[in-house]
């Protein structure tokens, strides 16, 4: 029996001006599946996952998230956004709000949750990412790794069914990468559907169900981690892996 599809992209094309950034992309992600997307910079991987919660609009093809097709219709976009959580490279915490307020903002104003309830939820997830004692500090007072874990907790507070990660560890100091990856591994163990743009190949081997390699706006190769890393088939994949693995 096959698991239901969480995200489906069919012949998706996108242009920035005249620049063809996504070219005939086809991808289906099952519920509970973990996808790692890698590729050289400018290959369109960030754009791909940003299309999934419509931070970018695609121009042709179809994107269906959890049974809802993304169109210009605002209601569909809202529904998708409140079910898809996202973590950014630069965390993008709100600097004027405390950690707790960062986490409760969307539950209160989008989910119309009572404040007490939202705070309990936030504390639950802050405990899960192991920083409950920082709840009343401001983002500027935390280290990069802590900020990224808060960002994960903030996204989780909306109880998303799908999580998107856009290079969550690229802006971190080396000693902080592990704490963030550990949190992501735990999340994966809970069965969350995840799409991660990352170059952490150790993480990909450990967690991913599939690794997607992109170049020039298209999916070049897609395979389970073991064969992907040990026996890459496409010439470009081999070149890329040789450059990042050494």
């Amino acid at each position, binding site marked *: 029996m*096959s698991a239901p599809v969480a995200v489906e992209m069919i012949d998706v094309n996108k242009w920035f001006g005249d620049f063809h950034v996504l070219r005939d992309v086809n991808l289906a992600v099952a519920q509970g599946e973990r996808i790692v997307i890698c590729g050289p910079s400018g290959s369109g991987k960030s754009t791909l996952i940003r299309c999934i919660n419509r931070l970018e609009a695609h121009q042709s093809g179809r994107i269906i998230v959890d049974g809802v097709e993304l169109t210009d219709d605002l209601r569909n976009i809202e529904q998708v956004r409140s079910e898809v959580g996202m973590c950014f490279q630069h965390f993008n915490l709100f600097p004027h709000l405390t950690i707790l307020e960062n986490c409760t903002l969307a539950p209160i104003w989008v989910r119309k949750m009572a404040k007490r309830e939202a705070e309990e939820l936030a504390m639950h997830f802050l405990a899960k990412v192991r920083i409950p004692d920082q709840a009343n500090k401001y983002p500027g007072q935390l280290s990069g790794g802590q900020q990224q874990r808060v960002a994960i907790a903030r996204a989780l507070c909306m109880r998303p069914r799908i999580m998107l990660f856009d290079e969550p560890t690229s802006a971190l100091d080396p000693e902080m990468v592990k704490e963030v990856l550990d949190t992501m591994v735990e999340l994966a163990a809970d069965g969350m559907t995840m799409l991660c743009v990352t170059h952490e190949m150790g993480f990909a081997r450990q967690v991913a169900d599939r690794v997607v390699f992109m170049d*020039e706006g*298209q999916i070049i190769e897609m395979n389970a981690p073991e064969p992907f890393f040990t026996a890459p088939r496409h010439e470009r994949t081999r070149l890329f892996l040789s450059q990042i693995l050494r």
Partner: protein
Amino acid sequence: MASLHDTSGRNNAPYMATALVPARMPPQGQGKGWRWVRSNLAGSVLQVVLTLFGLWLVYMIVPPLLSFFITDAIWTGENRTACLPPQEGVSVGACWPFIRAKFDQLIYGFYPADERWRVNIAYGLGALLLLPLLVPRLPGKRLNMMLFFGVFPVIAFVLLTGGNLRLSAFLGALSPGLGFWGDALLCAFILLAAAVGFTALRNGALAAREVARQLLVPVAVAALVLLAVDVDFGLVPVETRLWGGLLVTLVITLVGVSVSLPLGIVLALGRRSRLPLVRISSVVFIEFWRGVPVITVLFFATYMLPLFLPGDMSIDALLRALVGVALFASAYMAEVVRGGLQAIPKGQYEGAEALGLGQGLAMRLVVLPQALRVVIPGIANTFIGLFKDTTLVLIVAIFDLLGAMRAAFTDPNWATPTTLFTGFGFAGLIYFAFSFGMSRYSMALERHLNREQRT
């Protein structure tokens, strides 16, 4: 997850692209121009409404202005009758003969007609020295700066006032019969000897020669300047109360700029000084002049300052206004420069000092050039503000461009329904051209410097 390869979906099986998808152009109707129109003019109903509203506003403003100032305007005529509407109910445009008739007054004030060539030379010389200064590519900036800020003001002063100040002997009682130049020479000699002697006592002969050289230059420059304003070149003296119009506007702006920048830098450094008295007096000076309206500074300079000076000392009205302008302009400039000094990281001071540069040299060679570069927009804004504030002198009865214009309005020979609008249009164009030009220039300069720094 065991169900890895049997989920539904289109291509979850191991996949490899066989051929690369070539880049295509965006689909039809999404070309560059159309996309721009869609996203900037007509993306939604609201967008269309806004576009139409905007175009309606443009239609309401631009064509009437054009027809008033150009197509419907009267271009020739000797007096007001040319600009009066031919019959009741017919409207006419701008009355340009009015500007032509008053042009000299707007540019020179009441400067005697026979002597206006002096103003023209000053204008021309200023432009000649300023233009190459503004083009970053041209060489010789140092010399050019010295000519514009050092030599030009002296020449302009002599040209405009007539020079021949008849400096009086100031050591009077001490040296009867010696006269001013005797006094000056005597003072210079005493100053030089004292400094050389003092240094020789402390550091040995070599340093003494160095000090002598360094002191000789300023003394010589001061002597030259004094000489220039004291010699009788045979120019007819023109009192400043005859000056007016654009001449006064530009004189006040230039004097304000050249006084406020150095004074502002000194005040900014003073405000960051470690010496409490220096710091406090700088703060008080800066905050006081920044805290009161410009017009009260001019009132202060006009009505109050004369009371504070010895009774037999009568100061020229324009000079009083200039003192007021210098006071507030340097206070504003000081705050701008301070912002730049704060923006320079501590590492730059440390780096300069690590190279063995003393505090003064570190400031002059490393910190200040960077700080001033950072605050070019702020400096330009202060200059523009100063330029706009020159209009205020008309309140203390000095006729700048706006004041001259207001005086021209009262001429009954030119009283027509459109005189006022024509005058404001003309003066507005001049003010706008200068300030807009200055702000655009500072932006371009900033971009140029940023580009230069990056490469």
